[in-house]
């Protein structure tokens, strides 16, 4: 009998440690599928960030390196420059990428580093216990914004795709969401496209994924999708922010 659905080769046979309803497992699987479909397993180096996905390397059957908080794009720069034939994936969350590592992501993008960034945006710090993130919404309560994020002293959420799209070098920037099947398909397509652009050496590719965090949002996995649609998606519009060779392609 023909198997029509199976575990990607690039994914280990190990149960995810993520909470019920968390988006990480879905994005891990999409990424592994894309790696397999493009035949990149033997070339891939995955960078695990600091955050809930710090153990991403438990699951991916590829070469792995764990980076300091926020520094993954700098580590990726070193990896890719030292080993240009490898396929480098920097997998980061919002606290890691948009707070501690803001300088690293902006400058990797500005240089047009030829690797792929997968950015999981769930508007909260997961692993450390639900504190306010740079992408936390105005009014959203968290462990460190117990009365809701007040823009008078905590400012406003940062929109990474829009910010990076002001730069000339990036090749591809898209924001996707895990809220329904159509958008899951788009997210997977975006990740695969970002990897394919790296294969072609076309430059920096950035895929943001709006992802549910039921545990830290304080809702059920079911409700988390509604919450994502009602709150996250209006603040962070989906779409392609850059898909053009406006900058100089990397050698």
């Amino acid at each position: 009998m023909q198997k029509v659905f199976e575990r990607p080769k690039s994914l280990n046979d190990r149960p995810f440690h993520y909470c019920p309803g968390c988006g990480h497992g879905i994005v891990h699987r999409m990424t592994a599928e894309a790696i397999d479909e493009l035949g990149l397993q033997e070339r891939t180096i995955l960078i695990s960030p600091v955050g809930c996905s710090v153990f991403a390397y438990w699951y991916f059957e590829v070469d792995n390196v764990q980076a300091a908080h926020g520094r993954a794009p700098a580590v990726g720069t070193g990896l890719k420059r030292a080993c240009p034939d490898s396929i480098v994936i920097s997998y980061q969350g919002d606290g890691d990428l948009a707070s501690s590592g803001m300088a690293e992501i902006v400058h990797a993008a500005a240089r047009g580093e030829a690797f792929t960034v997968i950015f999981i945006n769930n508007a909260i710090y997961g692993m450390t216990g639900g504190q306010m993130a740079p992408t936390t919404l105005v009014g959203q309560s968290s462990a460190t914004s117990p009365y809701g994020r007040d823009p008078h002293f905590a400012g406003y959420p940062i929109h990474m795709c829009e910010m990076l799209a002001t730069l000339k070098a990036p090749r591809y920037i898209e924001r996707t969401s895990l809220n329904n099947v159509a958008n899951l398909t788009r997210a997977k397509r975006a990740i695969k496209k970002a990897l394919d652009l790296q294969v072609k050496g076309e430059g920096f590719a950035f895929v943001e994924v709006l992802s549910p965090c039921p545990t830290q949002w304080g809702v059920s996995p079911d409700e988390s999708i509604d919450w994502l649609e009602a709150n996250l998606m209006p603040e962070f519009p989906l779409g392609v922010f850059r898909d053009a060779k406006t900058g100089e392609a990397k050698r």
Partner: protein
Amino acid sequence: MKVLMKGNEAIGEAAIRAGCTLYFGYPITPQNEIPEYMSRRLPTIPGGAYIQAETEVAAINMVYGAVSTGRRAFTSSSSPGISLMMEGLSYLAGAELPCLVVNVMRGGPGLGNINPEQADYFQATKGGGHGSYRLIVLAPASVQEMADLTVLGLDLADKYRNPVMLIADGNLGQMMEPVELAERYPNEHDKSGWALTGAKGRTSHLITSIYLDADEMEEYIGKLWRKFRAIEQIEVRADEYQADDAEVILVAYGIVSRVARAVVETLREQGIRAGLVRPITLWPFPSALVRRRAEQAKFLLACEMSMGQMVEDVTLAVNGLRPVYFYGRSGGNVPTPAEIVAEVKRHL
């Protein structure tokens, strides 16, 4: 053939000839000749890459990524910039990654000034970053040694899979002296067992420093420290000058050791049997040698361009057997031979 080079440039050229063709750095005085030199040379070398990082934080993490592939890479900075690299150095040591970091020390604390100092001794030899680790720390005293210890540093880093720091000062970085360089230096360490190159025809490799379980973490730290104990046994390096019959032992490293040599000569001309111990490895510190010399001496005098940092390692080595005195200048002032001669005479 000897060529005349600046200390900072000698580091860059020696690194390249040792196969270290990846450099990541950020401008800061007084080490700018290194990134400038690398930015000229590396684009002309196949496989070479120079990147001006956005910060020193990024530079050390670019090194972290680059050396993860098994290639040699280095970065350089000066005191305030080195402070920013401490997180990365802890991660490099924690993940057992080899690299060379050059600190051309300047005056401090804070923004300080761009004059030479030796006040980063504690930071280099005692940790600086978080957690249980050590850096191998090398201290050149001439432009020739800037080159030689760069080559040695890259080799020790690979041998022990640990970061090595070369600490010089603004004087050594800026001054010009004749240097003899080999055409090529060996770069032959086998890294195929751990380097990240894509898992083709092998199981996947992992570079990390996280161990959640207390016993696992303790076991891993124990493994690191067995390595550090071995380094303490094997890799101590020091130089001596007229120390065999000395009753006054000066201890000095880097540029100050050159002043101390002149002091030894002056004192000997005046009938005072002085000698010099010059640590080349600041960690591991040549404690056994210092202790041995203490046994024959009336006292020891540590001389530094700081308010007294290496003197603590001298004191530990001597362990109360003889008096250990200190003479230092700071702010960018280099102690003069006359000042040190006067200090020695004060204790005779």
